[in-house]
């Protein structure tokens, strides 16, 4: 098939974009492409869509392609562009403009549309005329999309535009903001953008855009209290498997860029987290008869989560003493805003105590390390956590040439 900038199936390009963006050190032969030509085509497409953001370098093992974006310097997520590349037929685009032009003059039946297309629009072209079914299908498709409405007149359906939505200037500002700050923001990018955005964004994980279809499908399951069949792709094992769950909540990280679904796993009979970037497909199943049961279950479950690990569902108790001098009020402020389900209290004039009961205290280690330089004491019912921090400090002292004997 000849190369085209447009694609039929988004899933195909999703993993390439992710690899170019997240990794960026893989050579052509390290991609899972069935052939070198497939890699070349995907690379060419992504390069065409993301002109200015694609970079490359060459080392002894060949050319490496990567996407590099300073999210603070862009005001619109460039990855949304990938959602504006769906392929279509010649009749799709032609009928799009013809039909909306016809309906701008007022309501019309399928017959009216066919007549005007053949007698007016295609009068000067050698193109063949569309049959009634093609026109009816396009009108019906636009009705499902909410652009058109139909009503019966005798035996015919009469189509017209659905009620117009007027975008006030306030909506335009809201759209500019939420397009970049809300899940499924790609839909906001479908509104026409006028002028420079008054908003900028810091700590913006652009990559979430690529999982929008998955989020959308899961939202539809949640809206209708449906179970879902998830098809997962394990990057490590390079294999697919399926799980049937009741989708309960999304857990999104604003510090690591990861996004998860929390679902109640019917077969394993427990809540499980699934990374959205590992989900290939979501299939809506039957309606759950007792959704309140899982809601109540979630409320009890969430109280002891630090992040997204339920460990073995038993609790770890952790206590940490942090030093903060008299003029270091910002440390107490940090603890207060970052404590999640934990508690913070002042132990003495220069010490703050953080306490938490969580399913998996190992998940807290990255956060605990951010206090290196101030940790006066760490105790945890999981010995591994304390030992791990001790070992890390020893290794870091060695790495940075510090006093290993002191640790």
């Amino acid at each position, binding site marked *: 098939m000849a190369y085209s900038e447009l694609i039929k199936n988004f899933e195909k390009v999703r993993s390439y974009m992710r690899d170019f963006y997240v990794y960026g050190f893989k050579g052509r032969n390290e991609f899972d492409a069935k052939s070198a030509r497939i890699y070349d085509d995907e690379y060419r497409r992504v390069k065409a869509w993301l002109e200015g953001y694609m970079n490359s370098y060459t080392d002894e093992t060949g050319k490496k392609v990567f996407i590099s974006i300073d999210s603070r310097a862009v005001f619109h997520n460039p990855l949304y562009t990938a959602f504006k590349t*769906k392929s279509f037929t010649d009749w799709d685009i032609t009928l799009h403009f013809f039909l909306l032009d016809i309906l701008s003059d007022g309501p019309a039946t399928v017959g009216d549309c066919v007549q005007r297309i053949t007698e007016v629009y295609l009068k000067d072209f050698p193109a063949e005329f569309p049959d009634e079914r093609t026109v009816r299908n396009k009108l019906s498709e636009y009705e499902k999309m909410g652009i058109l409405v139909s009503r019966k007149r005798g035996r015919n359906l009469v189509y017209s535009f659905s009620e117009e939505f007027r975008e006030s200037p306030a909506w335009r500002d809201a759209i500019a903001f939420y397009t970049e700050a809300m899940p499924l923001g790609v839909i906001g990018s479908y509104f026409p953008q006028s002028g420079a955005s008054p908003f900028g964004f810091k700590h913006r994980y652009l990559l979430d855009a690529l999982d929008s279809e998955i989020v959308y499908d899961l939202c539809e399951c949640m809206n209708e209290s449906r179970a879902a069949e998830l098809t997962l792709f394990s990057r490590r094992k390079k294999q697919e498997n399926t799980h049937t769950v009741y989708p309960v909540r999304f857990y999104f990280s604003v510090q690591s860029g990861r996004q998860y679904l929390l679902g109640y796993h019917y077969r394993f009979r427990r809540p499980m987290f699934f990374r959205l970037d590992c989900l290939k497909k979501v299939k809506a199943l039957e309606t759950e008869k007792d959704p309140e049961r899982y809601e109540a279950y979630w409320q009890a479950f969430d109280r002891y989560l630090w992040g*997204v690990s339920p460990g073995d569902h038993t609790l770890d108790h952790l206590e940490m003493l942090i030093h903060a001098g008299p003029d270091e009020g910002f440390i107490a402020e940090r603890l207060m*805003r970052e404590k999640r389900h934990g508690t913070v209290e002042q132990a003495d004039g220069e010490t703050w105590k953080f306490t938490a009961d969580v399913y998996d205290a190992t998940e807290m280690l990255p956060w605990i390390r951010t206090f290196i330089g101030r940790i006066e004491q760490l105790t945890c019912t999981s010995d591994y956590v304390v030992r791990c921090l001790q070992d890390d400090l020893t290794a870091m002292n060695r790495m940075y040439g510090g006093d290993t004997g002191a640790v």
Partner: protein
Amino acid sequence: MLFDEYYGEYYACVSEILQEALKGTLTKEKLIDITRRRGFAETVLTIPGHLKDGSWPLLTADLKTALRHPPQHPVTLLQKRWLKTLLDDPKIRLFNVPETGLEDIRPLFDPRKIIWYDRYGDGDPYEDPGYIERFRLLLEAVKQHRRVQVTFTSHRGRQNTWTVLPYRLEYSGTDDKFRLLCESDRQRYRTLNLQRISACRLLEAFDPEEHPSPLLQNDSVQLEIVDERNALERAMLQFSYLAKKTERTGENTYRMTLQYRREDETELLIRILSFGPVIRVVEPDRLAMLIRERLQRQSLCHFP
């Protein structure tokens, strides 16, 4: 459906071409120019060809169209559902959007179903009427390029009143806060937390061409990553909000170069520390020194 040609760049591009044709002002050069501007890198090889060879019979050979009206692009149900979803978010009050027009529309999701589990707990007070009023005024100031007088409390608790030129309102999803990026009399680039601003007043307009938003210089840090405990994948994703380049340097080691703003250095340092010994700062020396200082301070803390 989320992925649909209706929202595609090709439709938008052809729409603009047809608008020009309707006005009778379309030329071959303009057609190419619109395609280059609206389309992707290779779109110029497809759209003009389809319009010329009649496979998309929308333009005649003399670049006229039989359409009678400027092409429309009505808002779809999907878009309305997305807008309806926004009405459930506390921040929507900042925008004064009309509450009518979406009554019969079902939202796409319930924002309460999303847990932002590591978002900081001291976000801006989006329901405070005073905050909302100041936000709206500052938004107008940014959009209309108006000077603005702001009274705010500094980190040290001192109250200041400045006249500033606002560039942009910057939102951080991690902090759940807005900041005003602006220029003050003393400094070309300032960041003011909206939460710290207690009063503001619109002043006269300024010429944005005389006072363009400054292009900030990035600093660069080079990190060595040892791919243990899934460190590579975690680092790649965690730092993906910055411009970066990664190279494989050995069987299990990688070099990652990040571009960052000097004002964000402490924050970056903390993020690097969170990885422990699987990431090492190679350069600049200044940043490595800051980590060394923290390690030395830790050795005085009687732990472990």
